[in-house]
């Protein structure tokens, strides 16, 4: 092997006066950055550091600092340090660059260019501490007339659900944490495409099970052990390509849940091989509805791509009760870096356009719209609801609540936080009781904030926030962007 031209990404600083040689950092780092020798010397192997902060956070004397490795290239506005480093990596490996989590590139975030309204004088704001403030949301097909039987709906007490994250991509303790939080908060968690482990089957009432192109773990039992079924066509982090759970993450538990041999690659094909067109999707939706006796809503999840409006319209007409759209900020356990960073469109545009398109076609009541990918906080939730979504999925935010520091190396399976790993020892680092508590706290905090913002607008039911674009004003946006979002500029 030739000499690597790469320098470490991170630099590990140790304050020798503070370090007590307790060895926590040594034990905590699965990447073996820290080493304590017999003479009491601490050694660091910086090139192994992924910047997950596990050691720095757990160090009892705050002796550690993690900084970016100081290496300034000659200033170049075009060839960034990252673009050089990526070439070094490919020149050494000859492979596709892999990464984890969502698109980090500095594309415009429309969330950050939208401002919310509040009442003054002509309309009283409503104080959520004194008046009821309703976030109850029903997802599904609302089009049945009053004389017909109502279609099955999902009831949410907060319009925030947990995104699909498979057992395998994340540890079982992550799923347990989110399932408990979902039940407590009356919302839903999603199995992802990794099947349903025995230990989370008891959460059926708040579980959405996924049917993806690999069909892992899918059986009549699986479909019926859930509140809803989601057909996953695509994912915001990697539209157009399938999934690959590397063999080293396919532990016996994962293998059993997915119904595949242990320690073998779990490959999800790019398309479903029984869905080559929209009418095929209609058949799969119908099949699943028959298999579940028409008792459960069926969702279809797609990535936000260029002609998402027409795609979403087709999905609704194919019989989906919920359309989940995953924007280009949506995260993943593993994706090729070029795909993650260059494919798809912003979720704000996708939701605004799809909501309007479904209205123009008069079919908006036939399906609920769920926005996934890139929701960072409660203000993002309020804004995307005002643009037209019925609810959101959060993935990254939920994992950050459980401890994730967004080091983007989920695909290695060596997650020091016990999140993106199936290693038994590492998984134990996430206690599902504590994880559930943290996820519940996050949702409760957001719930308070959403209610405060709604009350300020003079709205006391989330029903009246959905699609209420008058509550949004654009700032620093071009006219065509305002038009696409269906909002007017601040000051107008």
């Amino acid at each position: 092997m030739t000499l690597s031209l790469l320098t470490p990404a991170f630099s590990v600083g140790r304050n020798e006066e503070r370090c007590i040689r307790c060895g926590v950092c040594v034990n905590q780092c699965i990447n073996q950055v820290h080493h304590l020798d017999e003479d009491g010397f601490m050694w660091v192997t910086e090139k192994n550091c992924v910047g997950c902060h596990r050691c720095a956070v757990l160090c009892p004397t705050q002796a550690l600092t993690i900084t970016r490795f100081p290496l300034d290239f000659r200033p170049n506005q075009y060839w960034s340090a990252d673009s050089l480093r990526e070439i070094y990596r490919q020149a050494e490996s000859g492979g596709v660059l892999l990464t984890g989590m969502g698109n980090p590139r500095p594309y415009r975030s429309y969330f950050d260019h939208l401002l919310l309204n509040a009442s003054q004088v002509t309309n009283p704001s409503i104080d959520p501490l004194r008046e009821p403030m309703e976030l109850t949301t029903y997802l599904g097909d609302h089009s049945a007339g009053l004389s017909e039987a109502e279609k099955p709906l999902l009831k949410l007490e907060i319009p925030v659900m947990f995104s699909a994250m498979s057992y395998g991509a994340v540890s079982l303790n992550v799923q347990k944490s989110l399932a408990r939080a979902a039940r407590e908060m009356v919302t839903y968690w999603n199995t992802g495409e990794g099947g349903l482990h025995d230990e989370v089957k008891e959460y059926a009432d708040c579980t959405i099970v996924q049917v993806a192109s690999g069909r892992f773990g899918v059986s009549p039992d699986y479909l019926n052990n859930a509140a809803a079924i989601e057909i996953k066509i695509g994912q915001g982090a990697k539209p157009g390509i399938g999934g690959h759970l590397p063999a080293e993450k396919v532990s016996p538990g994962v293998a059993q849940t997915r119904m595949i041999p242990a320690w073998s690659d779990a490959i999800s094909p790019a398309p479903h091989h029984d869905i080559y067109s929209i009418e095929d999707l209609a058949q799969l939706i119908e099949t699943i509805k028959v298999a579940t006796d028409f008792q459960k809503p069926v969702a279809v999840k797609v990535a936000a791509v260029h002609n998402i409006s027409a795609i979403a319209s087709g999905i609704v007409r194919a019989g989906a009760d919920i359309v989940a759209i995953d924007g280009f900020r949506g995260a993943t356990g593993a994706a090729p870096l070029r795909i993650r960073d260059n494919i798809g469109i912003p979720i704000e545009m996708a939701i605004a356009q799809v909501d309007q398109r479904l209205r123009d076609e008069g079919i908006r009541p036939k399906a609920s719209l769920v926005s996934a990918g890139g929701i960072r906080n409660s203000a993002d939730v309020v804004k995307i609801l005002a643009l037209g979504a019925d609810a959101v999925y959060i993935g990254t935010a939920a994992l950050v609540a459980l401890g994730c520091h967004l080091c983007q190396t989920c695909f290695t399976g060596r997650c020091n936080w016990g999140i993106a790993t199936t290693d038994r020892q590492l998984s134990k680092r996430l206690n599902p009781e504590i994880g559930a508590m943290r996820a519940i706290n996050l949702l409760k905090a957001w719930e308070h904030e959403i209610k405060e913002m709604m009350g300020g607008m003079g709205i006391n039911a989330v029903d009246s926030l959905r699609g209420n674009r008058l509550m949004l004003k654009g700032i620093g946006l071009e006219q065509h962007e305002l038009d696409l979002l269906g909002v007017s500029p601040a000051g107008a």
Partner: protein
Amino acid sequence: MLKLEGDIRIPAGCAIAAVLNRSGQRFDGSTIIASIATMHKRSNGLGGGFAAYGVYPQYRDHYALHIFYDDAGAQQMCERYLMHHFRITEREPVPVRYTRKIARAPLIWRYFALPREDSLSRQQLGEEDFVAAVVMTINSDLGGAYVVSSGRNMAAFKGEGYPEDIGEFFRLEEYQAYLWTAHGRFPTNTPGWWGGAHPFTLLNWSVVHNGEISSYSTNRRYLEMYGYKISLQTDTEVIAYAFDFLMRKEGLSLEDAIDVIAAPFWSKLDRERQARLRRRYASLLLNGPFSIIVATNNGLIAVNDRIKLRPLVAASRNEYLYVASEEAAIRAVAPVLDRTWSPGGGEPVIGLLHNQEGLLEAPSTGLETNARSA
């Protein structure tokens, strides 16, 4: 330059009032003028108006179209359009009394008209949908023409000014009606436009409204999905269309419609039907402060938003039902009352003529059959 209503959304505070004689005895407009005048300070001179039911018994089967025109050109264009779709039995200017208090009046005409059979069959619409479509087309597409009211045996009189001055201008003491509603407007940002005053009407519906609907955009975008053209950008327009949609198009009872627009809180629902209505019509919940009076030929319903953020008082005396923003407005015209009460949030006051069971005579299909045979 200030933008006109329709170009921009303008919130407004207001006074509202109504008087109904439940046995259908008609009385002139001086009562309702005296009532609304009591609340002079609740409006600011930028809009006042009235709806009157029972005013055209001689043309009870005709659609009475009251139209504002900016100029003779607009009138010519609109009348050509009307002739195309209606047989016009009578056409005349609405009689007015010029006073110094009223300025900038448009040309105000009324037409007693019946839809042309050929036009009706070409459009493949029921008669009422047809008339509604014509009205919406005039209001949104024909510049300089604005339909003030379009119902049968009813009319709306409105304009820029204090309501009592508008009443004097339109000589309302010369009209007899069994149901009057009134409105004094306090818009917060408008040059004053006659079309922007209340009541807002569609077919036999009229709405006067005090409040600001925070759910406006949600309500509006939902109604647009069903073909409603929202041209004025006023909350009142959206409320009128919401009632039209729920009761005429969807065939809901008045009780059900109220459970939609002022839906009880989830925690306070006591009937599964209310929950079903709420789930199905979530986007028609009127959120934010309002008190409204919705009237048809059969009677009226007055209701507050569900946490009562705007005033509303009701009272009765013999055959008369009174509703107003303030009790003083009722006492001014009826010092002795059998009963007065302040309805709770979302709790409707319903006043119907004795021989009527709902705000609409019958489901819309039955109504159309009656109209055709007439």
